[in-house]
């Protein structure tokens, strides 16, 4: 056997290498941050309103938290176009449910339904990170967090978005009392406290995250309904 000859001979058909880096991307990250904090009988939901694309600002006021007809709030981050379509879809399903059942959907039923809606697009996902909030059947604050394909978990608080790495650890510390001795991890905050923390989380995030700022949409869900507030954030 002439091994030298073998080494020079090609062992496969020569192929061209195409770089696919110029391919059109169906997704865009519109930046921004959202959070929700659950209390014993309320939920505070907060989303900034800046919509961006890279280093450019598309809008200083583009709301990304939406009040649904069953007294729930869906806070989104990620691709705003997908968020809008997702909210449209959920609201349509909520209406159908309402007319069929003669009552509004419970937050837990909507939560499960949302998981299914997201997974139905497992192979072309909604590029959205939803946080669904409402009062559960016992009147207690409920926050459901998802990944873009529908992995669902009920939690006491959650932050998503471009400043999530800044906000979530802050919530872990001040809402979840994590890594603190003699702290009760199951203790839920009172409404004024939760509201202050939500606002402080955003003023802090606005300082350091370029994609977060302009205005803050706040929703307070409690047994009297949903109160909506707007606060200005730094525009820089």
């Amino acid at each position: 056997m002439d091994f030298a000859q073998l080494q020079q001979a090609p062992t496969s058909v020569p192929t061209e290498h195409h770089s696919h880096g110029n391919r059109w991307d169906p997704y865009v990250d519109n930046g921004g941050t959202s959070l929700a904090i659950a209390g014993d009988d309320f939920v505070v939901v907060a989303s900034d309103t800046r919509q961006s694309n890279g280093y450019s600002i598309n809008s200083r006021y583009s709301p990304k938290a939406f009040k649904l007809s069953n007294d729930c709030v869906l806070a989104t981050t990620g691709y705003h176009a997908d968020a809008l379509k997702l909210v449209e879809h959920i609201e349509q399903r909520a209406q159908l449910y309402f007319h069929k059942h003669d009552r509004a959907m419970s937050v837990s039923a909507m939560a499960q339904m949302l998981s299914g809606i997201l997974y139905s697009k497992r192979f072309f996902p909604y590029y959205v990170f939803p946080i669904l909030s409402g009062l559960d059947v016992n009147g207690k604050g409920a926050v459901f967090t998802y990944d873009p394909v529908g992995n669902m978990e009920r939690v006491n608080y959650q932050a998503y978005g471009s400043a999530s790495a800044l906000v979530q650890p802050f919530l872990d510390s001040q809402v979840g009392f994590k890594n603190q001795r003699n702290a009760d991890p199951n203790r839920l905050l009172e409404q004024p406290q939760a509201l202050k923390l939500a606002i402080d989380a955003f003023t802090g995030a606005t300082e350091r995250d370029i994609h977060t700022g302009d205005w803050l949409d706040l929703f307070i869900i409690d047994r009297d309904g949903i109160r909506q507030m707007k606060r200005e954030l730094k525009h820089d």
Partner: protein
Amino acid sequence: MGDTDAYSFSLTTFAPNGKLLQIEHALAAVGNGSTSVGIKAANGVVIATEKKAGSSLIEVSTLEYVVKVCDTIGMVYSGMGPDFRVIVNAARKSAQKYRRIYMEDPPVRILVKEMASIMQEFTQSGGVRPFGISLLLVGVDERGPSLYQVDPSGSYFPWKATAIGKNMINAKTFLEKRFNGDMELEDAVHTAILTLKEGFEGQMTETSIDVGIIGGLGVEGGAKPTFQCLSPAEIKDYLSNIA
């Protein structure tokens, strides 16, 4: 495909007097079936039916007339057994499908509408016949206990108390006298068994009737009521309270 096209039209067509004869005949099939009763109590619902075996050699204990659809819904029928089995499977599947989406059992009226819709489909599709059964669907949901009847036509009716099948006329007359809205579930079971006894040929034993209940004392305490078929031993207890 040529031969099968011949039945692409509906076999259920209007008669000049406005009736759908196939549905009338289906109702007749229901009328030939064993009597079933349903009674709604203040805190629950009961359904019961005659479990008449055609021969003494039949293994009566394996016959299933009163069935659980999901934890909070049960049903019974009068008419053609095999048709009932199809609807039971459809009902159970529908309930699980609902659970998969909403993580909750469907309210009774929602499941009723699903079954009624299926039964109506079979009165307006090609190559099929209507179901030869009437259903009594019961359950407890956020509105409390409910009892519904679904007919072969797909019509459905909410009832406080009713009977279907062979002895339905006498049974309903009996119920009209005996029923009152304040009845507790225990009394409703007692009344249901008495109603069946009215038209029962021969000796009623714990293996010759099927009884299912949902609700009862636990409901007020916040415990989630589940639909259960009574065991022969439990039925025997009720029978012993009847002369």
